[in-house]
């Protein structure tokens, strides 16, 4: 049994031409999504000569050649950018998660002291998201320009994620919390031993939302950081979409060794890879998370 078919009785068997039209439409949709990824991977692993001969792109490489990747990791620009990206993503996600869990949990408890004003304070920011110029000035006045906290602190808590998480915490049965309290557990133990173990799925969803947004962020780096401290997405912008050559950003050996195109595509692949790797495992959690959030907001 390859696939579960659940066609309701009232729906007749579709005609062959309907089925054909649907199959063609779906193939086109899937092809449009997959093909660009395919061609960047193919170009990145093709031999530099082949890429040049073919005019900058390859769909089906005749030989596999990973020199583009080795040259990237030989130079220090991309390596450094990747380390920065990884560091910001890991530390940022952890910090954001802790702050979000803490605030969401406190706001989910009924009748907490100061809960209502704080909730209003938070929800009001939905109406006026911080604008670019004032945010820049805040970061500047705090002396955070060109420091890594500037990539994390201004986006520490996402209101959407906070609302999803608070909603989930509110669903934890009060009886469990009461029972733990009767057993002598303090607030901290209740949070870490009772509530969080029940909330693994939502913590995973929100954590991944944060991780993806930290990994993909580039504009905050352009705004706040010097080029030397750019994460990989910002570096990618410099020479994939702005056409700066690798020499411009100080990676001379790579540009000599390789046709820039295969190296560029290799950088694109590397910057996409973490997302593609985790995506199959977390996709359904994302969908669940976005639906919960959509219904609530």
């Amino acid at each position, binding site marked *: 049994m390859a696939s579960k078919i659940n066609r309701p009785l009232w729906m007749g068997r579709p005609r062959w031409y309907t089925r054909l039209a649907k199959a063609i439409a779906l193939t086109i949709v899937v092809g449009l999504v997959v093909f660009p990824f395919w061609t960047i991977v193919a170009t990145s692993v093709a031999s530099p000569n082949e890429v040049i001969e073919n005019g900058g792109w390859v769909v089906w490489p005749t030989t596999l050649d990973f020199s583009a990747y080795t040259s990237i990791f030989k130079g220090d620009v991309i390596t450094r950018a990747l380390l920065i990206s990884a560091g910001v993503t890991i530390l940022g996600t952890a910090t954001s998660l802790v702050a979000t869990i803490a*605030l969401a949990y*406190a706001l989910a408890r009924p009748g907490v*002291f100061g809960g209502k004003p704080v909730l209003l304070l938070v929800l009001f920011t939905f109406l006026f998201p911080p604008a670019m110029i*004032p945010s820049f000035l805040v970061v500047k006045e705090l002396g955070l320009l060109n420091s890594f906290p500037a990539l994390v602190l201004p986006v520490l808590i996402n209101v959407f994620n906070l609302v999803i998480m608070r909603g989930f915490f509110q669903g934890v049965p009060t009886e469990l919390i009461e029972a733990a*309290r009767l057993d002598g557990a303090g607030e901290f133990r209740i949070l870490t031993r009772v509530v969080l173990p029940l909330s693994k799925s939502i913590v995973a969803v929100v954590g991944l939302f944060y991780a993806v947004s930290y990994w*993909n962020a580039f504009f905050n780096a352009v*705004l706040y950081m010097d080029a030397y401290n750019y994460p990989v997405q910002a570096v*990618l912008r410099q020479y994939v979409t702005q056409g700066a050559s690798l020499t411009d950003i100080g990676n001379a050996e790579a540009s000599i060794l390789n046709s820039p195109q295969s190296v560029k595509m290799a950088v694109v692949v590397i910057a996409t890879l973490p997302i593609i790797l985790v995506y199959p495992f977390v996709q359904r959690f994302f969908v669940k998370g976005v639906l919960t959030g959509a219904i609530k907001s």
Partner: protein
Amino acid sequence: MTVTAATPGESPASPAAASDGAPPGGPQAKGRRKPKPKRSRAQRLRRDLFLIGLMLPGVIYFVVFHYGALFGNMIAFKDYVTFIGVWDSAWVGVDNFTVLLADPDFWNAAGNTVTIAVLQLAFFFPAPLALALLLNSLVGDKIRRFVQSVVYLPHFISWVIVVALFNQVLGDVGVLNGILDDNGLSTIDIIGNADAYKPLVIAQVIWKEAGWGTIIFLAALANVDEQLYEASAIDGAGWWRRLWHVTLPAIRPVIVLLLILRLGDILTVGFEQFFLQRDTVGPEVGEVLDTFIYWSGIQDGHFGVAAAAGLMKGVLGVALIYAANKISHRLGEQGVYR
């Protein structure tokens, strides 16, 4: 899925702690549902110290980075000079707004923004709905799930990479033009061509977000009453009539809701996408409000004028949401809020 209303006024004030002593404040009803003895303010404060501690980092974050930025909008009324600072720069009243409104570049950016927003509404907004209807018509679970996984993926890809992908496929040394050239056909100038810029950015946003946008429509489609389909099928309604008389009316509230949200956000067409590609076609075609704010503020140093543009955009955005919501109530729909 836990669905509980997140309205702030609703949380019943039930003092959950059982560990501390009897309340001296007298048995006074608080909260609508569970009348429980009210504790004094000081007692609640002492009881909730830990929870307040949990709230603190988040509250500081919102106060500093959200309300600080909100407050920072005051430089829209100041002649901000970098080395003098936000506080000590001189007040200039509405001068920045006068300068802004007299600036043809600003109106050009506003015009581009609205044009692109209208194009998005016409071509990007229906795309997820169409795709969702197609996906919803699939009866094989496996194929459906596979297609869903594929079309959700671009949502998680950063704009930098999306632009790089489009350049690689559609650029003048890209795959499309390569294939055209190899077959002796004339090549098409897409990337960097001012005339093709608007269709290109619409195509990009459809490619990136249409699949993800199906989620909410698919959820709505799954909730359509099966009996309606059955009854209409028995009455002889074909595929088209079922779509027109059953499916679309059933998911109308969702469509209207998303339309309102989009209308309220019409001055925002997506910053990163335009920031990345503005220079390929130049500001005349490629400038939108958000990029205008960046280039005039951060790049050219006209902080006051740029902040004025941002403030106007924010206030107009709130007004638009309010108006769109009012209209939807007039039309007898639920809207975003009551």
